């Protein structure tokens, strides 16, 4: 086998397709309940606050801050082997939800709880747009 292993790709559902289409168009989109306004993530059918299925989408502000992180060292998937080690940051969004994305342009030693971040979007080398995070104002 000389074929390179492929990275895991999302299999969008009806609820999550706008999220993935948003990333492909360069925007991080979040589900917003059309009835009560609550923003939820990850995408899912029902608002757990008011139980409405009616859903709209809003663009995230692009701001975030550090909730936690890990540095991946072990090759759990062959397609990520060449990127090791990489830092995965769990980030708080001011919209009240979180995301996980790889850290760019800095190492884990620069991270502190609460440190401000900016959300970016990047193509993963295989045609999939994904969020990334950078330290803000650095």
């Amino acid at each position, binding site marked *: 086998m000389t074929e390179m292993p492929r990275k895991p790709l999302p299999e969008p559902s009806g609820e999550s397709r706008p999220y993935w289409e948003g990333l492909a168009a360069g925007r991080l989109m979040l589900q917003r309940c059309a009835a009560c306004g609550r923003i939820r993530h990850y995408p899912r059918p029902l608002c757990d606050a008011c139980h409405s299925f009616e859903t709209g989408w809003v663009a995230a502000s692009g701001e975030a801050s550090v909730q936690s*992180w890990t540095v991946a060292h072990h090759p759990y998937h062959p397609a990520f082997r060449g990127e090791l080690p990489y830092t995965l940051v769990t980030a708080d969004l001011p919209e009240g939800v979180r995301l996980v994305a790889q850290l760019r342009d800095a190492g884990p030693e620069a991270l502190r709880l609460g440190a401000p971040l900016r959300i970016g979007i990047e193509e993963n080398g295989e045609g999939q747009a994904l969020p990334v995070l950078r330290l803000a104002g650095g």
Partner: protein
Amino acid sequence: MSLSGQAAVTGIGETDYRRDAGGRSVLRLQLEASLAAIADAGLAPREIDGIVLPMGTGGTVAEDFVTNLGIPDLRLSTTTPLGGAGAVAAVQCAVAAVAAGLCRHVLLPLGRTGRTGSRIGARIHQMPQFRTVGEFEAPVGALAPAQYYAPMARRHMELYGTTSRQLAEIAVTTRRHAILNGNASMTGPMTIEDHQASRLIADPLRLLDCSLESDGAAAVVVSAAEIARDAPRPRVLVTGVAEGHPDSPSAITQRPDLTRLGLAKAAPRAFAMAGVTPADIQVAEIYDCFTYIVLCQIEDLGFCAKGEGGAFVEGGALGLGGRLPVNTHGGLLSQSHMAGMNHVVELVRQLRGEAGAAQVEGASLGLVTGYGDLGDGTVAIMARG
């Protein structure tokens, strides 16, 4: 009706954990452990009338046990697919079943070929519990339990000053217990320096913070308490049992408090049911897929306050003769990864006084926990009586 004291664990059985399955199937391994547990309970296989399978993904079904054991009248068949919380969830289910009079003797078999079969990183993404993280986190490179759990450990460290050397204390003590056990995969001694020199897997978790991939099986029989008076071994009653699910159970990322597991909800219920407090517990078998998960559960069980787990585990506190002997069999870290059924077996062994070189002197009250998937928690409190 309280479930306290309504059921007893009457039989325990395990395969050899010292080597791989040698081509034996998962079902074969489970049958070996089941026969051992049924015999230990002083029963004939035909007397089993309930089966709870603790993992949804083991590939075996109750029908396999009916067919192979020759069970003529199975009255309950169910599963508890809570990953590593499933073994103790199965105990809860079995206790409820015998207390309600549905069954007399419930078999709980768990077995796997984690070493010679598929690896965890591939396995979990076939499980529906991991569907959400599979869609939204795997694409960015968060692929395996170590990577999902490591941010919980990192936040605990940043908030409370918990250190990797404190996690090492857990790994080192657990290895010492495995060596005493005699039926453990890992038999070489480990030092804190060995732990610190082991390679990083998902920072802050190192190789020696991670549990084993194992072949084998463990099984127990849960019987109605009154019938259990006639069992050949000392009676071990389940006096408290509970299950708890964390906030945001499908994605740790979205959990309001990353340092709080489902066990934090279950533990007060189990202690109240048993009428005891953490200070009364003489031995604890705590689910140890990763060292940090042990530390976090010690806090969520109430043995110390949130944030004090690092200090709690220092200085050999979890060893025999320490303030809280933990994982006296060597756990998932060093005995075998039987998804916590080996923890149930070991607690019963301790409370019978059959734990050999690892016996906690005079132990008559203990607990066993489970931790599964993305934070599900279970706990059973047991007492000799």
